[in-house]
C-alpha cells in the first residue's frame, strides 16, 4: 500500500496515532461482530443461565421460518423499488439541471437539502401525508375511488415506505449524477450533434453509456441504503406491519433481538446481514479500484 516517498523514521509514534481509531473499532465493531457470530451458533435458555452450542440450528430454523423468508422477499422488493424509483427521478432531474444554465444553482439548492433530513423525520412526514383520516393524498385518492389505508393494506404500506425512502435518497443520487454528467466531455456531445444526433439520441447513445460508472456506483450505494439505512423510516411509519408486510431484514433483527429478546435468532440474522454488506462492499470496492486504474 502506498506511502510517501520519504517517511518519518519514528517507530512508536504511528501506533500511538492509530490507537484511538483502533480501540473504538475493536471494542465497538469487531468484538460485537465476533460476539454475534458466536451467539448465532448458540441457544440461550429463557433465564440466560445456560448457553448450548447448537451449530447451524439457528440458521436452519431461520430459513424454515416463513416469516423470515417473507422478510427476505419483502426486503428485495423494497430495495429494488427504492433503488430504481429514486435513481430514475434523480437522473431525470440531473439531466434537466445540466441543461439549464443560469438557474441551475437555484434548482440544485432546492433539490439537495433533503439529504440532511433524518430518516425518521422523513417517515413521519410521509406518514402524515398518507394518513388515512387527515392526509392529503388519501383524500385525493378517495376522490378517484381508491380506498387508501396503509395501516391495513400491506401493499399500500409497502408503497408508502418505498416512496418515503426514495424521496430521502433523491438528493444524494442527484448530486452524484450531476457530477457524473459534468464530467462527460462537452466535445463528445458536440461531435455527436455535428453527426446529426438529436438531444434524446445523444443522451441515450453518448451520455448514458459514459455515465455507467456513476450509475453502477449508485446502484450499490442505493441497495445498501435501502437495506440498512431505512430503519428509521420503517420504524416511524409501519413498524414492519401490517402483518409483516414491510418487515425488512434490518427491522426484523431489531424487533426479534431487542424487542423479542430472541438472541440466537437475532444473532444469526445479524451474521447473514453482515455477509450481505460484505458482499456489497466488496463489489463496490472492486469497482472503485477498477476506476482508479483508468
Amino acid at each position: 500500500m502506498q506511502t510517501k516517498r520519504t517517511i518519518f523514521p519514528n517507530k512508536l509514534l504511528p501506533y500511538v496515532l492509530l490507537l484511538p481509531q483502533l480501540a473504538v473499532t475493536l471494542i465497538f465493531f469487531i468484538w460485537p461482530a465476533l460476539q454475534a457470530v458466536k451467539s448465532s451458533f448458540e441457544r440461550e435458555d429463557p433465564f440466560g443461565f445456560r448457553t448450548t452450542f447448537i451449530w447451524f440450528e439457528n440458521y436452519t430454523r431461520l430459513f424454515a421460518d416463513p416469516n423470515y423468508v417473507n422478510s427476505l422477499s419483502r426486503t428485495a422488493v423494497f430495495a429494488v423499488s427504492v433503488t430504481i424509483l429514486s435513481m430514475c427521478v434523480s437522473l431525470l432531474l440531473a439531466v434537466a439541471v445540466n441543461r439549464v444554465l443560469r438557474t441551475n444553482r437555484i434548482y440544485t439548492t432546492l433539490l439537495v437539502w433533503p439529504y440532511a433530513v433524518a430518516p425518521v423525520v422523513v417517515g413521519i412526514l410521509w406518514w402524515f401525508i398518507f394518513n388515512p383520516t387527515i392526509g392529503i393524498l388519501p383524500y385525493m385518492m378517495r376522490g378517484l375511488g381508491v380506498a387508501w389505508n396503509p395501516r391495513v393494506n400491506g401493499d399500500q404500506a409497502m408503497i408508502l415506505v418505498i416512496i418515503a425512502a426514495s424521496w430521502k435518497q433523491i438528493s444524494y443520487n442527484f448530486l452524484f449524477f450531476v457530477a457524473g454528467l459534468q464530467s462527460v466531455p462537452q466535445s463528445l456531445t458536440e461531435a455527436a450533434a455535428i453527426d446529426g444526433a438529436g438531444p434524446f439520441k445523444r443522451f441515450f447513445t453518448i451520455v448514458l453509456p459514459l455515465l455507467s460508472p456513476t450509475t453502477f456506483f449508485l446502484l450499490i450505494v442505493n441497495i445498501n441504503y435501502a437495506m440498512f439505512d431505512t430503519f428509521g423510516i420503517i420504524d416511524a411509519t409501519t413498524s414492519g406491519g401490517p402483518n409483516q408486510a414491510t418487515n425488512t431484514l434490518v427491522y426484523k433483527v431489531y424487533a426479534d433481538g431487542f424487542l423479542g429478546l430472541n438472541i440466537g435468532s437475532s444473532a444469526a440474522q445479524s451474521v447473514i446481514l453482515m455477509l450481505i454488506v460484505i458482499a456489497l462492499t466488496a463489489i463496490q470496492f472492486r469497482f472503485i479500484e477498477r476506476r482508479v486504474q483508468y
Partner: protein
Amino acid sequence: MVENRPWLTFFTHLVLIIGVVIVVFPVYLAFIASTHSGGDFLRGLVPLLPGPNAVENYSKMLFEGISTAGAPPLWIMLANSTLIAIIIAIGKIIISLLSAYAIVFFKFPFRLLAFWIIFITLMLPVEVRIIPTFAVVANLGLLNSYLGLTLPLIASATATFLFRQFFLTVPDELMEAARVDGAGPMKFFRDILLPLSRTNIAALFVILFIYGWVQYLWPLLVTTDSRYYTVVMGIKRLAATADAEPQWHLVMAAVVLAMLPPS
C-alpha cells in the same frame, strides 16, 4: 452548446419545477400543519395555507414539551442533538486525521493489518450488530450517557480514507522541505498538514454533523432517560403516542425545528 429548442427548454423547466415541488411539498405541509391549532385537523383534511397558531405551537414545543407523551421540552433535545452531533463530527475528524497520518507518513509492522481493521468498519453498520454492541456499551456502564451515545459511532473508515486520499496528494517535497527545515512529525502535522487540510475538514464536518444529527437507532437503544433524548428520537415518540392520533400540529412544529440546524 448553441442550440435552440424552445419546447425542450420549457419541458426541462417543467421537470425541474415538478421535482422541486415533490421535494419541497412534504416539508411545506409540515410547516403549514405546525401553524394550526389541533382542532383544525379534526375536520378531516389538512389545510394548505398557514394558520394563526404558529407562535403558540412552537413555544409550547420548545419550552414545555408534551408531558402526556413523556416528551421533555424540545430545546433540551435540540441541545442534546447539537452536542452529540458536534462530538461525533469532531471525534471522527480527529481520530481519522491521526490514523490517516500514521498510515500515509510512516512505515511500520502491521500497517496493512491496521488499515484493514479500519476498513472493516464499513462492513459493520450498527444495524447489523445491534444486540452485541448494546451489550458492550451496557457492560461498560455507558447507557444513558453522552459518551455512550457518541463513542461507539466515532470510528470512521470513510473519513480515514478521505484524509488518506488527500494526504497522498500532498507533494512529497513539502514534507521533505519541512524535515530539512527541522520539523519533526508532530510539528509537520500541526504546522503544515493541518492547515492544508482545512477545506477538507470543514466539508467533512458538515457531512459528519448531519450524520450525527440524524442518528436514530443508536440513541434509541442506549437511552431510556429522557434527559438524553435527541430530537430525532423525541419526534418519533411524539408521533407514536399509543393508538391515539398524534397531535400533528405539535409534531410538525418539532419536525420543522429538527430540520433547521442541519440545513
